[in-house]
């Protein structure tokens, strides 16, 4: 069924009885061409692009719980393409372009809202760094505007411009940044893939890989053994856990990142605002809640919940630029698992095991990358060569001495 205005009218006049489930609930087949492990945003996007752009039909997505139960439903929904380095920025720009056409493409309302992202700067040195970043963004056509204090005062008069420690001096603004309704991204990709015959197998946990002579031939799951020519792991957050079943150690640690939502407020924050001197970012959801977050907790964790010191740190960051949020009450907070890689950048690559592919290491920036991650992973799976914008996102880059370290923090995952 195609969603459109006429269909809504028709269904409305007939008691809304004709709507059908957005995807099927099939039983696993014994064999597929490609099995994607992980029914999150990236896995479903991979299935969508494989089936819709690369002509593959015989595909399954296996998911331990229900689709979208992991990080695609836990993030703070931001999209942006304001990276610096060559290995990253073209990739994130592709992602932004895919976001821009996504809803028409998969015929689903994902509420892509490009309200702009404002990265505040607080010192001369930071202004210079942002000017450099803005120039890097222009090289990929991503657009970026360096705003001075007066321009921000007009846009966001409620910021604490004269903060004694971190006065706001200006910002790098990317007008194309914004937010997307994250659950709808998972559902839209799932529906689009399902319509092309992709089997989405929920409650189907991978319990092992069958590897013979360095060739991965099947996945063992809680719903039986499924053979496949190619097995594509896409489980960021749990990559360490899943890849250890294939005997692999990764340049990744799993960490917990917390996110927060305030009570619903009247419209106040137009786009996304980030603090330049601490780690804090905030946007306002369509329901009015302020959605915000900050640093990861900083220790290995698979617990999907964090601790209070980081809650305090994030709220202090918020108070430093937006004193008015001290009047708002915190409604909800939760944690998600992050694949923190050794340089803060992700991987989309083959492994040394034939037929086994790996996508992960998204740190806490995976959501904005969802469409490009799916597209580039699909490209790799279909053609066995990396997509041009993902050529540097390789597993062996540390051995080659070619990390993509945006922050220049070195191989210390909790600092990225």
């Amino acid at each position, binding site marked *: 069924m195609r969603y459109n205005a006429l269909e809504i009218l028709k269904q409305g006049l007939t008691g809304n009885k004709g709507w059908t489930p957005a995807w099927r609930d099939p039983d696993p087949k014994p064999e597929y061409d490609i099995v994607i492990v992980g029914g999150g945003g990236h896995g479903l996007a991979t299935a969508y692009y494989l089936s819709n752009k690369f002509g593959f039909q015989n595909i399954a997505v296996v998911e331990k719980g229900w689709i979208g139960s992991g990080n695609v439903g836990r993030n703070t929904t931001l999209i942006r393409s304001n990276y610096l380095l060559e290995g990253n920025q073209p990739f994130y720009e592709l992602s932004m372009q895919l976001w821009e056409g996504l809803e028409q493409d998969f015929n689903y309302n994902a509420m892509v809202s490009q309200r702009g992202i404002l990265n505040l700067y607080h010192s001369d040195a930071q202004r210079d760094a942002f000017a450099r970043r803005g120039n890097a963004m222009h090289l990929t056509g991503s657009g970026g505007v360096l705003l001075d204090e007066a321009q921000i005062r007009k846009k966001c008069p409620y910021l604490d411009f004269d903060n004694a420690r971190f006065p706001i001096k200006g910002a790098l603004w990317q007008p194309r940044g914004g937010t997307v309704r994250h659950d709808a991204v998972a559902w839209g990709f799932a529906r689009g893939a399902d319509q092309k015959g992709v089997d989405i197998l929920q409650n189907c946990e991978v319990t092992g890989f069958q590897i013979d002579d360095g060739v991965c031939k099947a996945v063992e799951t809680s719903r039986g053994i499924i053979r496949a020519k190619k097995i594509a792991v896409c489980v960021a957050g*749990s990559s*360490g*856990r899943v890849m*250890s079943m294939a005997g692999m*150690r*990764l*340049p*990744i*640690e*799993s960490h917990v990142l917390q996110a927060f939502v305030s009570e619903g407020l009247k419209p106040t924050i137009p786009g996304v605002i980030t603090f330049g001197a601490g780690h804090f970012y905030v946007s306002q959801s369509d329901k009015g809640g302020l959605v915000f977050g900050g640093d990861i907790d*900083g*220790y*290995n*964790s*698979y*617990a999907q919940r964090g*601790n209070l*010191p980081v809650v305090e740190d994030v709220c202090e960051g918020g108070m430093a630029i937006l004193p008015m949020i001290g009047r708002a009450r915190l409604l909800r907070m939760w944690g998600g698992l992050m694949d923190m890689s*050794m340089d803060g950048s992700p991987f989309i690559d083959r492994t040394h095991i034939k037929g086994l592919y790996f996508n992960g290491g998204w740190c806490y920036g995976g959501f904005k990358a969802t469409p490009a991650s799916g597209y580039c992973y699909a490209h790799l799976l279909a053609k066995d060569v990396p997509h041009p914008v993902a050529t540097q996102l390789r597993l062996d880059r*540390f*051995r080659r001495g070619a990390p993509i370290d945006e922050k220049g923090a070195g*191989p*210390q*995952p*909790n600092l990225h």
Partner: protein
Amino acid sequence: MIIHHPLLGPRDAAEFVYLGDASLIERPDGLAENAEDTMYEYVYLRDNPAGLHRELWYHEQGDRSWLVVTRNTVTHEITAVELARDVACDKGRSK
């Protein structure tokens, strides 16, 4: 999280800085034949287990000792805390 420091008793984890897997104590010989491989694995690859994890914490806001904490990464429960110095000495190192 509360870390039971072997010398100072229960301390808030916020007083500590986290480094990572306790295997980082065992730095390989950088001049050995196979140093390129062993250093690569030492610096970049991690076991990253879901469950018990031995890890290094530095008591920066306290006595500046390094601790080896055994913690469950699924529940955050801490089951053992040792001085990293003792762990290293047990492995035959001088300090």
